[in-house]
């Protein structure tokens, strides 16, 4: 590994600009990784390990790494962090960087498309199951509300997401 201060400075600038303001407070204690369900599920580059790589300036090198998309946004890392790093914000900042570079994992693209089309990132057709238990087939959510879907599309089209040209 080569220690390149320019790369370190650039990485920290990008992560901070994307919301990971606390990255330099990290002392690598590992509490975030100890509590992270994504780490338990086997994603190798979450929380402590991701932060360490970013502090070493390894931003582009990790652009294709899909670990960040394993973050479930549970925010337990932020609760346990003794230094106020807010690790989830760092992970999300890295995700935003990846998204801006169109480096989505395939799983992430599917959920973005679901969100754009139905207003739900994770969507499965509920009709059959609901009819069996005697509920109305359609949920009172955006999934069956054309006007609501249109509103969500308008929001997404006008967000940085829209600029990526995914939809």
């Amino acid at each position, binding site marked *: *590994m*080569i*220690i390149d*201060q320019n790369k*370190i*400075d650039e990485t*920290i600038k990008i992560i901070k600009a994307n919301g990971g303001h606390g990255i*330099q*407070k*990290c*002392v*690598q204690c590992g509490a975030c990784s100890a509590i992270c369900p994504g780490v338990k599920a086997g994603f190798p580059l979450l929380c*402590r*390990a991701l932060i*360490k*790589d970013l*502090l*070493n300036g390894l931003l582009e090198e990790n652009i294709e790494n899909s670990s960040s998309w394993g973050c479930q946004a549970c925010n337990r890392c932020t609760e346990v962090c003794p*230094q106020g790093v807010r690790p989830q914000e760092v992970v999300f900042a890295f995700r935003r960087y990846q998204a801006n570079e169109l480096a989505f994992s395939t799983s992430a693209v599917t959920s973005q498309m679901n969100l754009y089309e139905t207003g739900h990132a994770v969507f499965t057709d509920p009709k059959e199951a609901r009819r069996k238990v005697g509920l109305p087939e359609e949920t009172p959510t955006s999934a069956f509300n054309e006007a609501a879907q249109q509103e969500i599309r308008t929001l997404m089209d006008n967000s940085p997401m829209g600029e990526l040209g995914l939809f």
Partner: protein
Amino acid sequence: MAKVGVYVCHCGSNIAGVIDVSAVRDFAESLPDVVIARKDLFMCSDSGQEMVKQDVRDGLVDRVVVAACTPRTHEPIFRAAIEKAGLNKYLFEMANIRDQASWVHGNDHEGATEKAKLVVASAVGKARHLQPLHDKFVDVTNAALVIGAGIGGISAALELANMGHKTYLVEKEPSIGGIMAQLDKTFPTNDCSACILTPMMVQAFNHPNIETLAYSEVADVDGYIGNFNVKVRQKQTYIDWKKCTGCGDCADKCPSKTPDLFNGSLSDRRAAYIMFPQAVPKKAVVDIEHCLNCAGRTIGTQPKINEKTGKAILAPCERACRAGAIDRSLPLDPGGTIKEIKVGSIVVTTGYQVMDKGWFKEMAPASPNVITALQLERLISATGPTGGKLLRPSDNEKPHTMTFVSCVGSRDVNFHTHCSRFCCMYMIKQARLLKEKYPDLVINMHFIDVRSAGKGYDEYYTGAREMGINFFKGKVGGLEILPGDQLRVLAYDMEAGQSIEYSSDLVILATAVELPPDATALAQKLGLQFCGNDFFRELHPKLGPVETAVAGLFIAGCCQGPKDIPDTVSQAKGAAAAAAVPLAQGRVKIEATISEIDSQKCSGCGICEPLCPYHAISMRDYTDRARGVIERHAVIEMSSCKGCGVCTSACPSAAIKLHGYEDEQIYAQIAALTA
């Protein structure tokens, strides 16, 4: 006939959890001369002590045996109790059935109980033969000696002096101030070291109760608590300090150059020199080893005469001195002068040195751009060789990338196993100061781990991370010299699991803190002991941190173990308080359990004299007028005797009695144990 009372302690479950205390009590009652045997949950409690006192006051007992824990901690308590009740305190004996029975035989309750009975029987056997003894007192010289005038010594001396005690402050260098005088700023407040130290140096030097003996060493010590006789060798300065004004003209004119140790040898000084600009006292000395004896002016010789002018040809230093303080014709003794002083207590604050980089062959010591952290202090100090500019030694260029290496010789079985304790913090301090001054400077710090225990210290460390200083967990494995005086750093990032290699302009080694080599000779003069090979040993690591095995001798600061400035000052003030105790009391107590020589039996053979570890025995001649002969006898200086008993057991004439451990007492113990 003695009336012995035996009191058996449960010590909660410490003793009673293993030993059948009732059985021991019943057994004690059956022993000869035992008139009362009682037991209690805690004999050392108020109620337990009161039980003993009441029996004494009632006249029931005149010898007391407590079967409990160790006499080291509890004998004084029970002695005081019976003394208060009106009994001579030496008519007391302790049976240690905790350390010697319940603790060591915890798995054998029956066996432990039987052993406790024997231990009690032995104590009772001795107690039946105990005799009243009386403590003695000797007067104290109301003065203290502080050896070493760094921040620890200065703090201790000021504390003693402010309490009103005459204090001698001895320093081997020409100026007081110690290593703190070499530092640029101090963590975690970034106080300028000189700004906070110099006023204390001046205060100590000008204090009416402090006599500063700079450029001096302790040559010899004898005596004992309250009455130490110390010979201080005042080194030869070759410049009359009574006349020297500290102008520095002699140093300006002196042509001889030698590495300036105060600047970590990063620059030169002259043979005639003032140690540093803020030196106290601000006096010049001639380093005679490096003096060229210009104009043939060897010390103690008359000058040549210029044939034309008829004037004496003097050395440049002599000519430069307008105060007339340099006269090389005088027959000055290279050994200096000996000053004899008397003091009641001594505080040793001789400090430390950092290891030289030469020990570490893997760290490219041959490179001028590998320096110790103390050298970096001089490099960033405004009074240092570069005026405070960070310039690397090889080419006086500003470095772009620099590297800090921790634990060089510390936490390393090949050198020192101890942690030097303040390196992490001073490295972070140096990195912060440099990053503030040069934001573009790339600073990589490599640690086994960062140890930042102290008020405000961890905040100082985490703040450094936010300043953009790079921290890597993992010790640097080696350095390699590259072309252009660059250094290849071979490191590892344990947190990323990656090896690191990069080129660095300047590498700082945090070399280990250790005792300077002259500490051994001082320890021998004073009777100080060592902890392994590392530092002076305190009496007790927790409860006697400033005391030593020698009564009246105290230690503080880094000579006791690595510590930072706040800890050194705290310990020094603690040592001063402890050293003031005998001075404030005006007299010291001599325990009665010491040896005494029966001159009628002493044959004067002299066997005992060299055996005494405390140098308390001397041989003296006496005139026996009745017989008209001169006789030789051994004499024990009671204030030096510690009652160890070595002389008593060695005396072939059985002429030496150790009070409190007399033959019939010990035989009674043996008889009880072997009955």
